[in-house]
């Protein structure tokens, strides 16, 4: 445990971070190791090209967008706190979190998860997924197998289906409604008893009933 504490001490404001994100000390250390591994030059922050060095990510069709999601507008770097906070979106929803009306919504709430996904579509940050934005995502995910016309008809169809107020864009509310039945996968960090090794497992679709509780 000594090493745990010493590592933790090296991270500034670790208490606040843990409280905000809900990560356990072991999680934080695990992520800190990863952060340092990514930060090859030891500057204490990550640049887009650090992410670009991850080989698998380069093969991800929407990898660029996800990297982009780590960087707030106008900033070229991401520090450890932001890094952890972004990843905290992917923690599982705390089932038995105390219902305090005053406490801010946790990062890993379903709503925030959806917001994270939403902003990957909404690149111009106007709160709406326009047809062009959707087309870009579709183009990225579908590759060259599909013609432009097919792509556009899919996009039209998608917008039409989700668009409730008929403005030909998908707002966040509409996005959320469209995903209402979608069981949402997110990660779970967990530690095997007696082991320091952090395991990230895929966790399963939450059932629809639980989703509704969540909402």
């Amino acid at each position, binding site marked *: 445990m000594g090493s745990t504490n010493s590592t933790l001490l090296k991270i500034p404001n670790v208490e606040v971070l843990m409280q905000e994100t809900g990560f356990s000390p072991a999680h934080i250390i695990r992520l800190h190791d990863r952060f340092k591994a990514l930060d090859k030059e030891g500057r204490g922050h990550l640049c887009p090209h650090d992410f670009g060095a991850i080989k698998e990510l380069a093969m991800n069709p929407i990898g660029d967008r*996800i990297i982009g999601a780590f960087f707030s507008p106008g900033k070229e770097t991401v520090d450890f706190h932001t890094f952890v906070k972004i990843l905290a979106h992917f923690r599982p929803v705390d089932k038995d979190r105390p219902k305090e009306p005053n406490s801010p919504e946790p990062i890993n709430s379903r709503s925030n998860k959806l917001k994270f996904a939403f902003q990957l579509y909404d690149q111009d940050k106007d709160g709406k997924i326009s047809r062009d934005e959707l087309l870009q995502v579709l183009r990225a995910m579908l590759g060259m197998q599909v013609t432009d016309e097919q792509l556009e008809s899919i996009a039209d169809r998608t917008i039409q289906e989700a668009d409730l107020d008929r403005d030909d864009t998908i707002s966040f509310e509409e996005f959320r409604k469209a*995903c209402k039945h979608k069981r949402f996968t997110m990660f*779970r960090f967990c530690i095997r008893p007696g082991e320091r090794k952090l395991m990230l*497992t*895929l966790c*399963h679709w939450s059932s*629809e009933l639980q989703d509704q509780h969540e909402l």
Partner: protein
Amino acid sequence: MRGLSLLLFITVANEATTDLSVTGASVPPELEVSAAPAGTSPVASRYVPEEYGHPGIAQARSAEEPAAPSTEDGESSHQHGGGGYRIVQWEWSYVQTPYIIASWLLVASVAKILFHFSQRFTTAVPESCMLILLGLVLGAVVLIASKKQPYQLDPGLFFLFLLPTIVGDAGYFMPARLFFDNLGAILMYAVVGTLWNAFCTGFCLYGVKMAGVIDEKVNAGLMDFLLFGALISAVDPVAVIAVFEEVHVNETLFIIVFGESLLNDAVTVVLYKVYISFVEVGPGNVYTADYFKGIASFLIVSIGGTLVGLIFAIILAFVTRFTKNVRIIEPLFIFLLVYLAYLTAELFSLSAILSMTFCGIGCNKYVEANISQKSRTTVKYTMKTLASIAETIIFIFLGISAVDKSKWAWDTGLVVSTLIFILVFRAVGVAGQTWFLNWFRLVPLEKIDQVVMSYGGLRGAVAFALVVLLDKEHVKAKDYFVATTIVVVFFTVMFQGLTIKPLVKWLKVPRSTNRKPTINEEIHERAFDHILTAVEDIAGLNGYHHWRDKWEQFDKNYLSKLLLRKSVYHKSELWEAYQKINIRDAISVIDQGGNVLTSARLSLPSMASRTSFPEVTNVTNYLRENGSGVCLDLQVIDTVPGAKIEEDLETHHVLVENLYKPRRQYQSHYSRHFMTVGEKERQDREVFQRNMHNRLESFKSTRYKRHKKDRSQKKRKGSDAKEQDTSDKPRRNVSWQDKDPVVVPMAPEEDKHDPPEPDKDDDVGITFVARKAPETPKERPKSVPAALDGCQSPVAAPPSPTCGEKNLPWKSGMGSLPPCVSVEATKIIPIDLQQAWDQSISSLESLASPPEPQHPRVSAVSSLGGPVWTPAKGKSGAGSGSNTGSPSSLQFKFPTGKEDEEEGTLSQRQQEMQALMSSLRQPPPPATQSAGKRRNPCVYLRSLVTVPPSGAEPQSRKPTQL
């Protein structure tokens, strides 16, 4: 023998198209001799006793109707027998086996019908319970009648024929993603859980025996009890499917229990075999090495079975790549290869269930993509039918087998303690494993889930068949084990099956919902997968998504390339999903269309609502309003057709369009290799065409108006005529437009358009006023055909043909489907719908082309149309034809006037015949029309061509007055 014929029978019954020939071919030549004439020759009758029960003969005859006709046949046609001529002959021995099998199937099927008569009854009592009870009753009847029990659930029959049908169905239709998402839990329960149950039950039973609870007569040692524990501990797939399918628990819970029941087969098989061998050599001769052999055997059996299944899956997928020209036997390949996967695994004494399950899971994706839609349906229904009937037989025979008291011996201590141990260890095992699994699961399995899982651990026919297979030489207590197994099976299937439904309700276990994913969900699901993979990469963890992604890359780059047809490979999955959703919508639109047309609710539009939503005649909006959301592909509209004009094409078109097709057309053509288009489908297509046509008709007119406003003044006449064409069915257009209070986003000049419906109402309302207007006669020639048209098709009045329709490449004909689906991005995929779509689309396309160049065609149409519509008035028709063809008629100075007169009288007669319809159809004066009227350019065009100069009007007006 019975088993073989049963299989063949089932095959025959379900693949009636192919198998008669197949069976015929498989029968050796000399047997065919005996089969074919069925006793017309003495040779045949001599053969009969020898070949009695030969599957080839029997099947072919029992295929359609359970053996009855064939008996009839044999009786009536038999000429030689004994010493003299006998008209009828009793040939029971000849048909016995298939006859009995068919009778059993019939009894089972009828029993199913009876159970489902009462809805309340079936919701409370699972079918499996009823079938077992029925089996008990039948068994008792047979026992009383014949003093012995000839029918038993024969293990050979069960493992070779009944079980594969159920497992094949389960494996092929296994939701693959759900299965692999929960694979960890499933494997855990299947392997660890089953081992736990087997060992605990075995040891504890032995302990109880030592304690003296079990009677001394039960002559069994530790190995016997372990063996018994192994066979009794496995959750049974048949029972689980039968019970859980009716309970509808949520899919995660279902897949875990169901997956466990399939995958535990390897454990059961190995344990069973290992113990059998141990029992046979005697406990004293078992060495430590044998235990390791057992473990190795487990690995080989499970992994080997899986591999065999996957190999067959690849073969199957690869074969279906090349079945394009033999579509009719596509389903057969699937059944055969999946079944061969099972048999091959059995051949090498590997786990056959595992093999079949993985074959089904593995091939499903590729096979479904390769085979045709019809084959897909065939496979689905055949598999379901087979599985259902096999399940029925299994449960009935379980009941029947239980009656035979000579086969079993009762010991209360053994039965009760077995029951208790099974329930307790199942519950404890589930709780323990779930506790462990929940460390790794995002959504932990809740207490209620665990209760349902424990309670859903049903035992069934597998256990029974295994226990019957025991050798009494070695396992002395076999009879006691049989009795105990029967009780356990009955208890779990009947008592637990009966109570699990109320339990699930009472515990409020989340139920499954039967929604289909929307296109949004399809897209977002894929996007989320990508996101999660990326985040795993960023966080530096090789999690599930990482590997899933790797697998998908591999699948895309190698497997799919190898196993999918080229045409299929280049389609994106998302696009496929999109198309599927569109087909669904198209079908629902047809359904809705039917409703819209007939429902009075929608027939009377309220003016207020329409005026507040000025302009709406977009099919897309209509559909969106209805929540179905097919979207029109406007791009297709923009592509201009190669405007080659041929008169016969138009003629054909007009005929096809306006002649109401006879509903019944019997197809005398028969082909074994190609399915003909069914009557139903043709009618569907027709309905679809008409519905879509009408909608697009109005859509087109508004668009036309929007884009060619300068011509709007001239077009009015046309539009009016069009309105009247459809005015005998005013509801059709009105109703669906009424459903469209949506602003078309691309119509900025909305304010200039009046809503179409009020105009139409006006038209109808002021019909009589309209006749006095000077231009009325102009409309006469058009309105008459229209009226006739309307009267010929009372169900759905087709609008008069539009210019665009005349352009259609319709020569290919309505009757036959085009051989291929259109390549490009059209919305609705099935061929028949596709055709209708093309038709509608090209009618829209016509809007872009100016009306003038189309005049000759139009005139030709009207001239040709005349005789068709009014065959009695050949002269007038000819007159109009000559008139339009050469404006200067020989007979009259004013040919136009003459024609008008004739047309007028014609129309008058028509109106007399059907005053109501034609009065509605009378064209109103253009003066009363408002600028925003909906108009049919085509009719307008026709009027331009056929209508005489205005000078002739006064002449023709009078005769047309009623």
